[in-house]
């Protein structure tokens, strides 16, 4: 050790003036940051569970429970003679029995008890004044509604036949979807949207907070790694995760057991999911910019994702929402992802159904990223 400054040339330091291999470094920084995030994700058992397995379990659970639930086929018990029903014979009878299973009995109290327990959907009898009485439970409104509808139409037809004149007004209704539109057609896009939102929001928020807490962000600032490489690699990994989720969902849902039938331009789900991932990541970025600890980031993300999923119709349809909730729902990116992916996966929607949604999702991402930018901190 000498007190004199040595003049030995650094052994490995780049010679001054030689062009820095910046391009190669950029690619290699992107690749290795992506690798770091994938490895950390795969090693994080609970993240893996909540992002990949948990939504899939929901799909399989709901898919199994609701299998065939939308068929209007209902079970009713006819107590005693009911003329309008008994008079339906021949071809009309066969048609009726396709939608209603009619058993006959004469113990009214026992039949009512069965309705209460849910073993029967309704009890039908003829009142002393000739009225047709339908007793149903409000527990399953879809079923009871369809029973009432069917019985009502039978009564109308009988009335009309009694007049001997052709009907003045007729309504003809039929579903726009083919007859096979089963719950899985709605469940898959809804739950997939929820899964993608979970993965992207948590991925962005936890990476940001985790790296800030562990001082990795600061350390990266002192390495020749551009902010672009960091952001690009995070987006790439999140998009990859979302596409894996999509693939797994579609593979499972289209198995004969669940029976998802993909419609024409279903491949549009890919660009939709990509745009939605970017939009969800921007939410995660905001959560991560606000949160100081990983726990806080987790909590904030949870508080955003779960209500957003309910309001967006990920779990059940949002048709009956009051106006103000509907307005909130319309502002959520997940709502638009769910609607658009139902359209392309199940309703035969095409490019024109997906494009505006994609644009909206990207716009949303731009706005949120702008807000996060203002709140962004490199260190605590």
């Amino acid at each position, binding site marked *: 050790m000498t007190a004199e*400054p040595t003049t030995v040339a650094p052994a490995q330091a780049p010679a001054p003036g030689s062009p*820095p291999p*910046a391009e190669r*470094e950029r690619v290699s920084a992107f690749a290795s940051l992506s690798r770091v995030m994938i490895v950390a994700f795969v*090693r994080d058992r609970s993240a893996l569970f909540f992002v990949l397995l948990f939504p899939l379990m929901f799909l399989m659970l709901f898919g199994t429970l609701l299998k065939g639930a939308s068929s209007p086929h209902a079970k009713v018990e006819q107590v005693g003679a009911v003329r309008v029903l008994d008079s339906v014979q021949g071809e009309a009878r066969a048609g009726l029995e396709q939608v209603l299973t009619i058993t006959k009995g004469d113990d009214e109290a026992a039949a009512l008890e069965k309705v209460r327990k849910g073993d029967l959907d309704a009890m039908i009898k003829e009142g002393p004044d000739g009225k047709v009485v339908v007793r149903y439970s409000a527990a399953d409104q879809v079923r009871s509604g369809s029973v009432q509808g069917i019985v009502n139409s039978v009564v109308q037809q009988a009335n009309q036949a009694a007049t001997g004149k052709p009907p003045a007004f007729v309504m003809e209704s039929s579903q726009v979807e083919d007859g096979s539109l089963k719950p899985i057609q709605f469940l898959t896009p809804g739950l997939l949207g929820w899964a993608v939102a979970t993965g992207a929001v948590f991925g962005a928020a936890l990476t940001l907070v985790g790296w800030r807490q562990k001082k990795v962000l600061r350390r990266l600032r002192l390495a020749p790694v551009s902010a672009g490489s960091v952001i690009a690699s995070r987006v790439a990994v999140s998009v990859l995760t979302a596409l894996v989720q999509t693939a797994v969902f579609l593979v499972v849902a289209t198995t004969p057991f669940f029976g998802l039938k993909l419609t024409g331009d279903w491949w549009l789900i890919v660009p939709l999911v990509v745009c939605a991932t970017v939009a969800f990541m921007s939410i995660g970025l905001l959560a991560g910019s606000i949160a100081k600890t990983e726990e806080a980031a987790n909590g904030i993300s949870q508080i955003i994702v779960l209500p957003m999923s309910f309001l967006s119709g990920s779990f059940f349809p949002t048709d009956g929402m009051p106006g103000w909730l509907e307005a909130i729902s319309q502002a959520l990116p997940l709502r638009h992802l769910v609607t658009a992916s139902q359209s392309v996966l199940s309703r035969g929607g095409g490019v024109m159904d997906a494009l505006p949604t994609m644009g909206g999702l990207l716009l949303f991402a731009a706005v949120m990223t702008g807000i996060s930018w203002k709140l962004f901190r490199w260190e605590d």
Partner: protein
Amino acid sequence: MTAAISADGIRQRYGDVQAVDGVSLTVEAGEFYGILGPNGAGKTTTLEILEGIRKPDEGRIELLGLAPWPRNPKLLRRIGVQFQASAFFNRLTARETIRTFGSFYGVGPKAADAMLERVGLTESAGVMTDKMSGGQAQRLSIACALVHGPELVFLDEPTTGLDPQARRNLWDLLRDINAEGRTVVLTTHYLDEAEVLCDRVSVMDRGRILRTGAPAALIREIDDTVRISVESGQLPIDTARELLTAAGAETTSLEDDGVSLSLSTRLPAPVLSVLADRGALRGLEVRGATLEDVFLQLTGREYRA
């Protein structure tokens, strides 16, 4: 040849605390430079400003002839940094960590593994960074600072938390990289470390540099002071004070901590004869001045690391 670092009039305030209060320093290329000071002296803040990760309230800085602020990727390739607290990615092993840092600079996995070997972590290469001991993490953190062969290396308390053996090994490593021509700037609490490693040190306290120079030169400035200590209990401290005054042996400090009676003096001969007369020489130690005395003289306070 441009200096590795030249800084002029750096100031940084945090609320009420003036963490750095007008620091100016020049580090020559190839020099081994130490910043020495107790907790809260402003070492880390100074280092962060030099590295370019913190913008000072005031002051002008050049690293290798370039301004470190705003962020300059060309410069970043030529410097290596180790933070006081380790900064590792979640859920990676030591080997994955060093390879990742290497890749940012276009350093291949072989060279990265060689760096791991150099800090003696080959056997722990497969250990997750959050499962490493403090000393292992410290060494990995240093390896990450050195992986790309930087010209200028900043190390913030590199030997804190190391066992004596690991500390020696690290000293050897730091000497080696300095011998390769790299400039090394480190902060430390340890006076012996600064004395052993550094070409020059700056003694820092309360945000100011009190003195800069080669450790030997700083000590020589006060080398007429000698510290003498004997086992406690042989001579009551009051008696000692009287006898020493009577003998004309001036002392700059005299204390008994219950283990030893120790004093500093410029005239060791009369002190030793007083002690010998009273037969109080058990456990006698006499040593020349150290950086500790330099610090004492500069601040009027005992050095507490």
